[in-house]
């Protein structure tokens, strides 16, 4: 009896442990955001000893590197193991893990420097990065180091202890293990451009040029510790380690300098894509190639990945694996990648609403959610309506003027479509059309539509409470990948005004420039892009001058500002500006229309203004008082040695003149409403085409 009783103990304990494991699995969260779940899940589906290059880092890498593109273009077998705010400590653990599984093939490790400059916002990101990593010595060591104390460590070992408080957030999906693969190999594809965001009204500029005189940022101590481990590990296992910095709007010269020093210390190559020359090599435009100021969209990622493909092909031991035995699975993945992920890009490029819907329907595991706002069918052509009828969207094709409408298409089949008549039948005629339902993976959807004929124009599409609808006039469509819990594309077709959507920004922008459309005549977004590009080009021009040489011709400097419209150049003489002028110089000035300046004499005062390429004002004076010119928010002064010895260019209350002997020149961009450059040519001491001074603090 006693033994029977004692035998119950192990049975009880075994059952207890079993329940512990099961409940731990149930309560463990699945993070689909930033591709987190699939990055880890899919990594372990990779056959051993295949991966040759691995990318580690934070979300900028998650959104920036597409290993499938590397394979498609260069046949490289790479994997993107970056995760959201991945601390360097987590990169270290992942490096060990990828080496454990691919030690025969791994050759190159590319790590992004973002997380070296600061600690992650929360230490939870470490856990999030390695949570689904399989158990290994490296993981256990990392968890032990991460844990604050023994209690914390034990709680990390048992998911139930760590995630037990999720009981109140459990969804039906938590009861089923997600075994799907998304074929992106760690890459998170987004199509939204920064210019579409509200924050793009005043976009941060890339600091085109690196300032070598800045102070280096202090790097995060704990990150450095782990980075040292990574360096040693790579050295020990003869892996090529490369540091990179993906383009973002929040990087600085100071951070660059610190990383550059670190890379120098360890003799590692460092590529910073925020500064010249790499930013030029990418031809990266923040407004178009970033999605939110920090992360690349698919357009930026394409450029970034392409650069890395070129570099890896030529500078690493990574080989082209196309057609090689054992890598056939990459072809399968590539097909799926093209089909599933690139669908987002294709969707974004669709101009015709019917084409868009057809394409969206063809995407696997997709839910197409449609809601009309204001008015959605007035501009539809008969052909489009016919296509809609054929596609099972008869109610949309026959939708009344300013009517409300919602529809749901799942895996290519129209599940339902409702217009206001359906609402009427539900005794809900005066309210907006609203419908709630569950997607196949139990995501809760709410769609609302209100045409102007039934109240204030409005539309809404929420999935699990998150709003994805653009809520603009016309047909608002959200294509949702219910398997991965991610939005593939969200858009709106203003089918009240036009049957087709406007072309993408680049096309429209190029068209506008080709047609010579003045900036003022461009629409808001295009003008924003125009100004952004203009500012970018200004920066690039000035930076190149500053870094490439310490001497240049006055005429070379003036050339870009007078050859384009929108610039005003202020010239103010101080002290003496004529002594070293040659006859050629004077002839050149005359040729530019600076007639008075070409005749400047010893210690004369002079003010010259060139507006939109033509000289609009000149004044030369031999008197004993300084001369002045004033405009709106602008005051220019000049005084030769005998006339006050002064030079001033005040714009909006700020002094921009260098106030140096000779010609002081300031160029003002009227469209950007900012001073672009300020220089001085000491034409007393040297010929005008020999030397110039720039204001150090200006850029």
């Amino acid at each position, binding site marked *: 009896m*006693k033994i029977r*009783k*004692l035998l*119950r103990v192990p049975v*009880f304990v075994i*059952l*207890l442990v079993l*329940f*512990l494991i099961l*409940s731990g699995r149930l*309560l463990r969260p699945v993070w689909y955001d930033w591709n987190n779940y699939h990055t880890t899940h899919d990594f372990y589906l990779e056959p051993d000893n295949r991966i040759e290059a691995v990318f580690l880092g934070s979300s900028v890498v998650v959104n920036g590197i597409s290993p499938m593109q590397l394979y498609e273009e260069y046949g490289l077998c790479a994997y993107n193991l970056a995760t959201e705010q991945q601390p360097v400590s987590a990169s270290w653990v992942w490096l060990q893990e990828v080496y454990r599984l691919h030690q025969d093939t791994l050759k190159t490790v590319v790590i992004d420097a973002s997380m070296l400059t600061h600690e992650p916002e929360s230490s*939870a990101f470490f856990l999030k990065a390695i949570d689904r990593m399989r158990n290994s010595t490296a993981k256990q060591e990392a968890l032990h180091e991460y844990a604050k104390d*023994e*209690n*914390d460590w*034990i*709680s990390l070992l048992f998911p*139930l*202890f*760590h995630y*037990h*408080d999720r*009981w*109140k957030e459990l969804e039906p999906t938590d009861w089923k293990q997600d075994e799907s693969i998304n074929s992106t190999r760690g890459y998170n594809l987004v199509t939204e451009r920064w210019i579409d965001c509200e924050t793009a009204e005043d976009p941060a500029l890339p600091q085109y040029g690196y300032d070598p005189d800045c102070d280096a940022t202090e790097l995060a101590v704990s990150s450095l510790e782990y980075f040292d481990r990574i360096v040693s590990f790579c050295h020990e296992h003869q892996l090529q380690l490369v540091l990179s910095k993906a383009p973002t709007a929040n990087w600085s010269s100071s951070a660059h300098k610190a990383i550059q020093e670190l890379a120098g210390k360890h003799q590692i190559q460092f590529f910073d894509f925020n500064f010249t020359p790499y930013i030029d090599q990418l031809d990266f435009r923040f407004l178009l190639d970033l999605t939110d100021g920090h992360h690349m969209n698919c357009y930026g990622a394409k450029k970034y990945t392409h650069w890395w493909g070129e570099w890896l092909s030529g500078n690493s031991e990574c080989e082209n694996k196309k057609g090689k035995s054992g890598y056939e699975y990459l072809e399968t993945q590539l097909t799926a990648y093209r089909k599933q992920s690139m669908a987002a890009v294709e969707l974004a490029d669709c101009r015709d609403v019917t084409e868009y819907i057809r394409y969206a329907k063809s995407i696997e595991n997709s839910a197409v959610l449609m809601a009309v706002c204001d008015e959605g069918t007035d501009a539809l052509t008969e052909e489009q309506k016919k296509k809609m009828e054929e596609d099972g969207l008869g109610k949309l094709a026959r939708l009344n003027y300013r009517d409300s409408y919602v529809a749901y298409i799942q895996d290519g089949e129209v599940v339902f479509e409702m217009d206001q008549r359906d609402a009427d039948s539900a005794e809900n005629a005066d309210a907006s059309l609203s419908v709630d339902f569950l997607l196949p993976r139990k995501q809760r959807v709410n769609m609302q539509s209100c045409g102007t004929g039934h109240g204030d124009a409005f539309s809404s599409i929420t999935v699990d409470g998150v709003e994805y609808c653009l809520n603009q006039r016309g047909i608002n469509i959200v294509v949702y990948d219910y398997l991965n819990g991610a939005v593939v594309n969200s858009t709106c077709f203003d089918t009240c005004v036009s049957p087709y959507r406007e072309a993408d920004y680049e096309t429209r922008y190029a068209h506008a420039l080709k047609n010579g459309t003045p900036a003022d005549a461009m629409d808001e977004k295009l003008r924003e892009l125009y100004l952004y590009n203009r500012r970018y080009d200004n920066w690039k021009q000035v930076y190149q001058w500053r870094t490439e040489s310490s001497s240049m011709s006055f005429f070379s400097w003036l050339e870009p500002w007078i050859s384009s419209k929108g610039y005003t150049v202020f010239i103010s003489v101080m002290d003496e500006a004529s002594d070293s002028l040659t006859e050629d110089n004077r002839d050149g000035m005359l040729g530019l229309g600076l007639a008075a300046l070409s005749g400047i004499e010893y210690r004369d005062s002079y003010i010259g203004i060139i507006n939109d390429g033509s000289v609009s004002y000149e004044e030369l004076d031999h008197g004993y008082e300084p001369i002045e010119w004033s405009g709106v928010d602008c005051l220019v002064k000049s005084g030769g040695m005998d006339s006050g010895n002064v030079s001033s260019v005040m714009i909006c209350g700020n002094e921009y003149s260098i106030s140096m002997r000779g010609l002081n020149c300031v160029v003002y961009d009227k469209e950007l409403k900012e001073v672009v450059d300020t220089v001085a040519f000491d034409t007393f001491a040297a010929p005008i085409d020999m030397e110039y001074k720039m204001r150090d603090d200006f850029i």
Partner: protein
Amino acid sequence: MIFTDYLFFPFVLLALLFYFILPLRARWIGLLVFSLVFFCTWGLDYCLVVLLITFIAWLAGIVIDSRNHTRTKRKNGEASETKSSLEAGESESRRKKQNRIILLVSAVVIILVLVYVRTQQNLIAAGFFEPVVRTVSGWNAAIRGWLGTIPYLGELVSGGKGWNTALFQWIFGFKNATDKTAVVQSVVYTWIVPVGISYYVLSLIGYLADIYWKKQCAERNYFKLLLFVLYFPKILEGPISKHRIVGPRLVEGHRFDYTRVCFGLQRVVWGFFKKLVIADHLSFLVNEVFGNYQAHVGSEFLLAAVLGTVQLYCDFSGCMDIALGVSECFGIQLEENFRQPFASCSVAEFWRRWHITLGVWFKDYVFMPLVISPRLMRISGFLRERIGKRAGKNFMTVIPLAVVWLLTGLWHGTGKNYLLWGIYWGALISLSTVFDPEIRKLTKWLKIDTDSEGFRFFRKSRTFCLFVIGRFITIPGSLAVSWYTAQSVFTDFTPLRLVDGSIFTLGIDWPRFIVTLLAAALVGFVGSKREKGVHIREWIAARPLLIRWAIYYAIIFAVLIFGAYGPGYDASSFVYMRY
């Protein structure tokens, strides 16, 4: 290590394994080793101090006990002495008694000072020890000045590394301390303060007093006394055990008993259920409301005070369940500390059911000595003669009670609020005792059936309300806040805040709130069953295996899933651990 550490459970299992592997006679040594290990997890310094205190008590106990026995021997062996020699004997006896008192008082004073220091942490923060620190620093400076006049030593002193500094550094391990004041302050903060873990200190005082009153003999084996002091299940929050009861149980070996171990583990899990599922969740709400009192209204204060009462009960009684459950696994029965206190019909009864061992301690070692004190009896007799029989009787009730409750208040904390809290309870109990005849007459005159269920319910509710009012005095932390919150209940009640969903923003969301309330209801149900004499564990044990195990798993997973522990929760220590 505390009970809610993950390591505690494996620690207990390991201790049990070793305990039952060891020979019966040596089992207490295993317990002592594990208790020392448990205590050392708080810091080696603490352990050294406790060893010292135990040594003082052990030595004092032996000396007092030896004086007791000397006197007895002489009394029995020298019966045929002459009158003069008897007088001399009596004089010797008085001297011995005085010596015993001096010994007892000296030992108790040392320990009491430490208790006082322990509960005076806020006084330390407020500069209570500044004079001490200044004085010691002054001495230090004087000694250095004097030593400075002596060749060689003067060089040492003036070199900034005086011998006394070096000594301090060596003793207390301060490597970088050069400022004597800082050293002395550190000594006060790091050595003296943690010493006053008063549960075992009270037990030791009781032990010495019992020896003095010859209720027990002194423990001759220092390590056995050390085990009584350090026994890990009771070191955190008690119970405040009596050596003469628990001491022998600790050192006698206990055989493995499957049912007893099962019952013990069940009680441990139940303790965790009370602590983690109820108390720790409610603490978020209580802390939010009283910690951020400016943002809350009267109705929320009232709710928080009521829930704070439940929290305190579940926290403390949960800890006791864990302690008693663990101890039960070893076969060592500790004293119960709670007996369904909220089923009490009067405040006096309440304190006989709440923190029982503390009440018993004060009764045995403060109240009773005062009641039988000749001086008080003389005063009582005087009052009895001059004013009346009742006055004398009331005097003998009120004065000892006042002292007991004043000390109880001070034991809980030294702020004015704790003093008021002690006065509050002392006054309530005194008044209920003094006016008991009038209350009886009144109920009789009102023709109230005092045995009816309705009246009993009224009395239980009244006791609960009085306890809640008491919580109003202590939870907010200061009298000003107590006054503000109590006032708000009458001036800014705003009952709508209780139903508009605001309460789910007070640190505990609605799913957890519901679970906590359900869990509290379960605890209440189990308590009511126990009050009716139903033993739940035995009832469960009588069920079929499947049902039994289902209940066990349900409770275990209720703790693991609904408990407030792990990330996002501060490892909240037990409320009564600070005493």
